[in-house]
């Protein structure tokens, strides 16, 4: 963008610096400030895969992107309007995302010979003309920060650390936002260290003043056209949302929540969030590995908990065998897979949707499990509740698929009222001791009875061997095995009667093109489809949350479109399922680059079809 121009519907800002520069914090603060005013907003951190690569190198650059505006804010943004680069390495890594033109704010103090060399620059890009087409604000951020604090008693190191708030000040000025929210934040965050709080506030205000004085132009738009529905909001990442959703589900059902887990990027945060909730009756167990994680959860489920295990790709593979035990034991269990780039260790810090077929089929034997997926960070909350609902109601393990992009990304989340959440109070059926048998089933759901150790008179033995249909004892009978295999399948199939129909965003009677998608591609696809439709194109968007079973109207919806496009971040996994189930000659639209779709990538495929 040209900052001076106005009329933009949304603005994308990327904060980039060394891992130590505090850009995640600056970005989050900026995002919160603009969100306060009711803007739509989507954020996305971008961590380096090294913990803390040598300072100044490109390997150590940490980024945080914010997209905000009054409409069509559905992704962190394909291209960046304003890049904040705290050092040469940050500029180098990120300059390409500005390829539509835009503004750059750099800290000139960091553009010294040593840093330029570390970043691999032969000459100084601020001077060699290579940034010619861009609007560059080269500001001495570090030295101005120190200058502003020259009277402070803080150590030089501590003073230097304040530069991220100076930067925040510049950005607030640029977008004409008030600093109040950030000042409040600083006060509460450093409540016990008032000198640091003071320094940061000073610097923040100095940053604003400096930008004003140095004539940094102020964006002429004010992104105040409220589009968010009225209500109380908080910022929420997908991982936190999963944690909250699980805690809420346990509370709503009236069970204790038990999480058996093992750390793995990008899923660890769910464990970390739940570990804090000890006073909510939540137990978190960091196991010796992923197998012990799920096994302990199965044990806890046997003992009566709402049991959960969470992980990402490699951990999911390790859990395969135990998933089979959960299926044949018919115990409730929620398994959260925060997908990342595969195969093997793959691209651990990048996102991907390539574990769908594994979720469907990644176990030996006929081993059906319900699978649900989340579409946005906030939706993670609701799908976690949905997964728990299905698990307990149908006595089955359920896989919830999210991904790194959802897990780390965040958005404003309309805080729900507890009494507006699904009523799950009757979900856990009482077990009738009379005529008890462990595999006695509910006629409608086919769920078996859940008698828990401690309940008198209902002692029973279950296990991984095939069970007799009638009394649940071990059975090697051939016909019984077929019957049980079919009933396990049917139990999952029947869930189709208990989930919402697919919705068509667009033409209810169908039309030229229907784009089908699932998971975190939601925002990118919906945003682009909105634009197409604004142009009057016959295109609709159909987004799955329930992957297994699929909604009952799926075949019908598919049949409405002349061309069925299946968009996903893998090599065509949902596509494969739809083809097999509905014999539709669909057109895959895939990307497997560890990043969400860009609009132009969608257009590349779709434009030809319209």
């Amino acid at each position, binding site marked *: 963008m040209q900052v001076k121009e106005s009329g933009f519907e949304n603005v994308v800002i990327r904060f980039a610096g060394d891992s130590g520069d505090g850009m995640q914090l600056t970005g989050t603060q900026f995002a919160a400030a603009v969100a306060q005013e009711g803007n739509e907003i989507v954020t996305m951190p971008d961590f380096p895969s090294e913990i803390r690569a040598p300072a100044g190198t490109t390997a150590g650059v940490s980024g945080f992107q914010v997209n905000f505006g009054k409409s069509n804010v559905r992704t962190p943004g394909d291209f960046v309007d304003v890049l904040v680069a705290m050092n040469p390495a940050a500029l180098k890594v990120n300059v390409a995302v500005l390829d539509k033109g835009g503004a750059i704010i750099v800290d000139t103090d960091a553009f010294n010979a040593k840093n330029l060399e570390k970043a691999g620059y032969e000459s100084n890009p601020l001077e060699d003309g290579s940034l010619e087409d861009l609007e560059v604000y080269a500001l001495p951020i570090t030295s101005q920060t120190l200058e502003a604090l020259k009277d402070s008693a803080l150590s030089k190191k501590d003073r230097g650390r304040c530069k991220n708030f100076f930067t925040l000040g510049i950005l607030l000025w640029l977008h004409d936002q008030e600093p109040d929210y950030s000042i409040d934040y600083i006060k509460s965050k450093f409540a016990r260290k008032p000198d640091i709080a003071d320094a940061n506030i000073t610097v923040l205000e100095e940053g604003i003043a400096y930008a004003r004085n140095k004539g940094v132009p102020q964006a002429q738009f004010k992104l105040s056209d409220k589009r968010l529905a009225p209500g109380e909001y908080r910022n929420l990442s997908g991982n936190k949302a999963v944690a909250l959703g699980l805690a809420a589900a346990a509370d709503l059902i009236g069970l204790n929540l038990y999480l058996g887990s093992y750390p793995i990027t990008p899923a660890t945060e769910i464990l970390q969030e739940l570990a804090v909730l000890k006073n909510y009756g939540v137990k978190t167990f960091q196991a010796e590995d992923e197998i012990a994680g799920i096994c302990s959860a199965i*044990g806890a489920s046997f003992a009566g908990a709402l049991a959960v295990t969470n992980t990402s790709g490699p951990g999911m593979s390790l859990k395969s065998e135990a998933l089979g035990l959960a299926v044949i034991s018919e115990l409730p269990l929620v398994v959260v897979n925060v997908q990342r780039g595969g195969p093997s260790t793959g691209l651990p810090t990048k996102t991907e949707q390539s574990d769908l077929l594994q979720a469907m089929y990644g176990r030996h034997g006929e081993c059906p499990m319900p699978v649900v997926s989340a579409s946005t960070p906030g939706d993670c909350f609701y799908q976690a509740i949905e997964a728990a609902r299905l698990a307990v109601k149908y006595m089955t393990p359920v896989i919830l698929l999210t991904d790194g992009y959802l897990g780390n990304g965040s958005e404003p989340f309309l805080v729900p009222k507890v009494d507006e959440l699904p009523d799950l109070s009757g979900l856990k059926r009482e077990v009738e001791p009379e005529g008890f048998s462990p595999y006695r089933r509910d006629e409608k759901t086919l769920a078996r009875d859940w008698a828990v150790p401690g309940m008198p008179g209902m002692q029973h033995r279950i296990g991984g061997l095939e069970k007799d249909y009638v009394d649940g*004892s071990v059975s090697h009978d051939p016909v019984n095995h077929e019957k049980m295999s079919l009933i396990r399948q049917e139990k999952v199939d029947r869930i189709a009667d208990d989930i919402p129909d697919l919705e068509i965003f667009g033409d209810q009677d169908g039309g030229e093109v229907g784009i089908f998608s699932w998971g975190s591609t939601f925002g990118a696809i919906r945003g682009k489809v909105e634009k197409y439709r604004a142009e009057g194109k016959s295109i609709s968007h159909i987004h799955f949350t329930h992957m297994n079973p699929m909604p009952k109207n799926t075949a019908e919806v598919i049949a409405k479109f002349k061309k069925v496009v299946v968009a996903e971040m893998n090599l065509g996994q949902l596509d494969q399922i739809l083809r097999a189930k509905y014999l539709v000659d669909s057109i895959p639209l895939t990307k497997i680059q560890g990043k969400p779709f860009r609009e132009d990538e969608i257009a590349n495929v779709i434009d030809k079809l319209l």
Partner: protein
Amino acid sequence: MSDMKIDKKNYASAQEVKWCSGCGDYSVLKQAQLALADLGLRNEEVVFVSGIGCSSRFPYYMNTYGYHTMHGRAMAIATGVRTQNPELSVWVATGDGDALSIGGNHFVHAAKRNMNMVVILMDNRIYGLTKGQVSPTSDKGVITKTTPYGSIDNPLDPVKLALGAGATFVSRSTGKNQKLLRELLVKAHQHKGFSLVHILQNCLIFNDNVFDRYTDKENAEHSLILEDGKPMIFGSEMDKGIVLDGMTPKVVNVADVDPADILVHDATNEDSILPSMLSSLPLDKFPMPMGVIRQVEGECYGESMRDQQEQVTSKLGSGDLQQLLRGNNTWTVA
């Protein structure tokens, strides 16, 4: 312990027992049922968890809650049971392959965490259920279906490994010594923490007689029955004893030494090096120690989890869902 008379039948399930007749597991089953009666446990508060193996069929035969899980995973699953509900009486039935081969890591970590459960390890030094392959406790050189020219692997000693992982209760018996076995099972359950009962169990089909030297009457030379506070004396004539020569243990004739030199067993001294000494005796020169080898106090994971929950709750108050959903930083769009 309840005072009503409960006998072992109370703990037997209706299921027909399907081990080979003559299998050493029968004796373990019987003693476990007797121990439950001795302890007066209510059937519904008891959970038996097992892996896969002949020995792991155990839960089917107990009139308690039971879970026959996956090969090697019994302790991981039992950990979940016990952590979720530290009121339950949790027992693990496992074999040498199940606990020490595929399940070795869960064994180590259950011991490390001092998970309050009794581990009944039926060690026949062979894979029974899969019909006779070498196991982690098999002797070097042994010929099995998978080691047709003799095993080149060293045996693992479950007692030593458990000590290495910090186990608080470690004990051993043969399957034949029914009195000792029952006593150990009772003590193991009474102990607060991870309790290993290592049982030398005969598999008559695939590894018959491998423990004869510890079970035959004629072979009393080869077992050392430990008793707390008692000197380490053994032999059919109780004429041999164990002393320490520098840092190396030695077998002596009792008659030849000052009785005060004979080591006295002490399972409960936390810092004592006796247990690890006892677990490292080279068995070509020494008898096999039986009885309680170590029993020390320690906090248990499941209980600590509950305690921490209570502490946090009493400090922060019982969590309120609506407040949790709101979090600390909200804003309102009008």
